[in-house]
């Protein structure tokens, strides 16, 4: 069976390479049958990889320890859901899984475009298959998931206990979806450059893919943060670890693209820039995989390290060279006539928004690679840790937040004093009222204060937009307020979906600012019956409880939580000791309210003295980060929902559409 798996992967690689060649030659020689053959080869690649994934999954579930991969990442006692998750828990499997998702998306793209974008499609197929071939090549030649052990192991060495968490089922797949789907806009971008069809066609085709990719990157980042918060037990959710940065950078650039593409659609400007952003987003996803998988930069995520680094660097260079070369080659055709007439305009607000988003991405990139740079230049190892990233990114982030209140309402082309007043009187008032309230509440001046004040300004902008849209419909069509609001959103889904996403971003900013600036942290060693104070909570240590099963044993401190004379909760911060591999993990006890999280960690327990050390954190407003994520999800669904016109077009036979296009 192992050989069958290997064979499937090898054949898939052959098919992928054939697809690349057939598509490229077919496009250059204008041979339709070759182009079709390329597409069929792509489908075949997908089929073979599905087969390989199924085989690996079967081996995992059957505990076939004659496979090195199965023996390294699972055991007979590992719960089934983590046995499935082991598919992407180790390097070999994760690269196969990556190929699988990429080929799944490629297949969807090919099916979607059987009758559309025929001029672009050969190059789209070729590009997607080059990327597939790269990953399949790694799986075939470097990290074989079907590698056999000389003698089958009796028992596996199990998945890393840190990964044995339900987030393992959610976080890596979302991030993969986000990473991998960035390949689709990239492929269309390359196709546009290759064919010289540089208009809006490729952008309109990939609009939803870009949003899809961005959305799953958003989720992937947030799920990662939640995972860290719940599992690592240090009271925070983001440590600026290289791999976290690797997921954050493409998100930033992708966000920049989603904004600047609007300028291209409306004003036919920034074609080169948008192309650069698409290529950059994709390159950063490859860079991210490189960071995760190469171990070049030490990281808590480097669960496995390997010699993959050079291959990724090589592939990255190839991407940059080819796409950079194509852009330069097409530069004359990419130039557009659109101009910016004033600094006080929507166009320039978007330019500065892009500047800041890409600037933050650069700052993160710079901080991530600086240790390597320092070692090259000075031969000295240094650390670029959270204090650096926080200090550098906070001002840029707040400036970005501020712009979020400006961009959506400032006039296109050139804002006059009159329409500036009309656009900003409300938001500025909202910001000022917020500032006064913050002063009255005694919030100390600083980054968090500024974030809250900017947040009020941005919320003013958003509420005003919804209000005005609704009032206009009410006045014109005599609709009732809820109907008018629903219809104004329904008629302009992208725009209002975007505003809803902005509300989510404000919530996230507020949550991050509050929880980083006003976190309360107490650490005490207690005897049974003793208490400690954290913020407004009194925590009484009652006793320890222990439990054991075949997989691990656990130890929990029973803490009763009091506010004043009222006992509001009993919490159980816990340590788990896994048997294979022998490793302790922290199970945080968390009590979440809209106002704050009480977050308890069992630091240590001394069986002789029966003393426990408890770390208690009070993290204000942290839940708003996750609520923000939920709001962003709603906003994305609103923005991505097909409009009536699109649904009608989709319902029409594609052949008719093609006929109409040729007419």
């Amino acid at each position: 069976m192992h050989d069958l798996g290997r064979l499937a992967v090898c054949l898939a690689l052959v098919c992928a390479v054939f697809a690349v060649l057939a598509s490229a030659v077919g496009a250059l020689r204008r041979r339709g049958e070759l182009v079709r053959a390329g597409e069929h080869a792509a489908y075949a690649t997908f089929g073979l990889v599905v087969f390989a994934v199924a085989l690996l999954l079967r081996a995992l579930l059957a505990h076939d320890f004659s496979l090195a991969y199965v023996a390294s990442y699972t055991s007979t006692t590992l719960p089934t859901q983590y046995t499935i998750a082991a598919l992407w828990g180790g390097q070999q499997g994760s690269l196969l899984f990556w190929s699988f998702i990429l080929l799944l998306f490629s297949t969807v793209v090919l099916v979607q475009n059987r009758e559309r974008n025929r001029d672009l499609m050969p190059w789209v197929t070729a590009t997607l298959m080059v990327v597939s071939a790269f990953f399949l090549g790694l799986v075939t030649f470097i990290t074989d998931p079907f590698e056999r052990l000389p003698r089958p192991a009796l028992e596996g060495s199990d998945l890393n206990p840190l990964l044995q968490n339900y987030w393992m089922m959610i976080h890596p797949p979302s991030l993969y979806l986000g990473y991998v789907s960035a390949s689709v806009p990239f492929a269309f971008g390359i196709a546009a450059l290759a064919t010289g069809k540089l208009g809006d066609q490729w952008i309109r085709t990939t609009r939803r893919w870009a949003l899809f990719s961005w959305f799953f990157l958003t989720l992937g980042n947030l799920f990662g943060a939640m995972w860290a918060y719940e599992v690592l037990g240090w009271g925070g959710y983001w440590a600026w670890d290289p791999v976290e940065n690797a997921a954050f950078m493409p998100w930033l650039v992708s966000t920049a693209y989603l904004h600047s593409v609007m300028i291209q659609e409306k004003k036919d400007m920034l074609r080169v820039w948008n192309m650069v952003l698409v290529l950059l987003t994709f390159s950063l996803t490859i860079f991210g995989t490189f960071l995760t998988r190469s171990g070049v930069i030490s990281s808590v995520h480097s669960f496995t390290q390997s010699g993959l680094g050079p291959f990724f660097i090589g592939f990255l260079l190839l991407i940059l060279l080819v796409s950079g070369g194509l852009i330069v080659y097409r530069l004359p055709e990419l130039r557009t006539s659109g101009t910016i007439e004033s600094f006080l305009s929507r166009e320039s607000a978007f330019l500065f928004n892009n500047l800041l988003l890409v600037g933050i991405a650069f700052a993160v990139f710079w901080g991530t690679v600086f240790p390597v740079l320092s070692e090259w230049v000075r031969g000295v190892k240094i650390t670029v840790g959270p204090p650096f990233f926080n200090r550098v990114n906070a001002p840029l982030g707040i400036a970005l937040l501020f712009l979020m209140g400006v961009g959506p309402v400032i006039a296109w082309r050139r804002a006059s004093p009159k329409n500036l007043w009309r656009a900003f009187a409300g938001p500025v008032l909202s910001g000022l009222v917020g500032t006064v309230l913050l002063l009255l509440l005694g919030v100390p001046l600083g980054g968090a204060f500024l974030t809250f004040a900017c947040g009020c300004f941005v919320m003013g902008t958003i509420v005003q937009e919804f209000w005005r849209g609704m009032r206009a419909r009410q006045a014109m069509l005599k609709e009732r307020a809820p109907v008018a609001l629903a219809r104004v959103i329904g008629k302009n889904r992208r725009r209002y979906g975007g505003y809803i996403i902005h509300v989510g971003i404000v919530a996230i900013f507020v949550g991050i600012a509050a929880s980083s600036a006003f976190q309360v942290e107490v650490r005490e060693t207690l005897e049974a019956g003793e208490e400690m104070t954290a913020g407004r909570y009194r925590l009484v240590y009652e006793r320890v409880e222990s439990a054991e099963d075949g997989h691990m044993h656990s130890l929990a401190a029973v803490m009763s939580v009091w506010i004043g004379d009222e006992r509001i909760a009993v919490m159980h911060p816990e340590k788990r000791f896994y048997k294979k591999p022998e490793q302790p993990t922290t199970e945080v006890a968390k009590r979440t309210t809209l106002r704050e999280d009480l977050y308890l960690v069992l630091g240590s327990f001394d069986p002789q003295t029966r003393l426990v050390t408890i770390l208690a954190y009070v993290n204000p407003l942290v839940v708003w980060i996750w609520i923000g994520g939920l709001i962003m999800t709603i906003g994305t669904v609103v923005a991505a929902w097909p409009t009536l016109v699109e649904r009608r077009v989709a319902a029409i036979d594609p052949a008719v559409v093609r006929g109409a296009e040729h007419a």
Partner: protein
Amino acid sequence: MIRVALLLAVLAAGPVAAAPATQQEVEESLTCQCGCGLTVHSCNHIQCSSAEPIKDEIRRRLTAGEDKETILAYFSGKYGEKVLSSPTMRGFNWFAWVTPFAVVLAAGVAIVVVVRRRVQVRDDAPAPPPGGDPALRERLERELADLDRDDA
């Protein structure tokens, strides 16, 4: 816009702490050497063989009246520069701090220059007849407003 951004940057950086360093502050300036990748302050490994002794040492030195700089210099000497959780502001490390802002500023200035040049080019162009046709003006306003629509 840039001025606003700069002002915000300055404000966001906040007041520079002049108060004596706290235990937490020093712990956050040091990286745990156990391989967890977190700061000494954040590492919560049970009886971490790296973070715990470092925390004790910091406590001892703070009680003895040493300031943050001296303590950091001590640890830097003991473990090498990599123990510091962010680069120093000296020598080559200075680039770590300055480059991101320099790049953003330079790009911002470039945008300003390019936009301003284009604005001037347009200003030099023959001006449209003053006042203009009110109907045309109205149409222009309407079309500009239409830019905000999804299907525009």
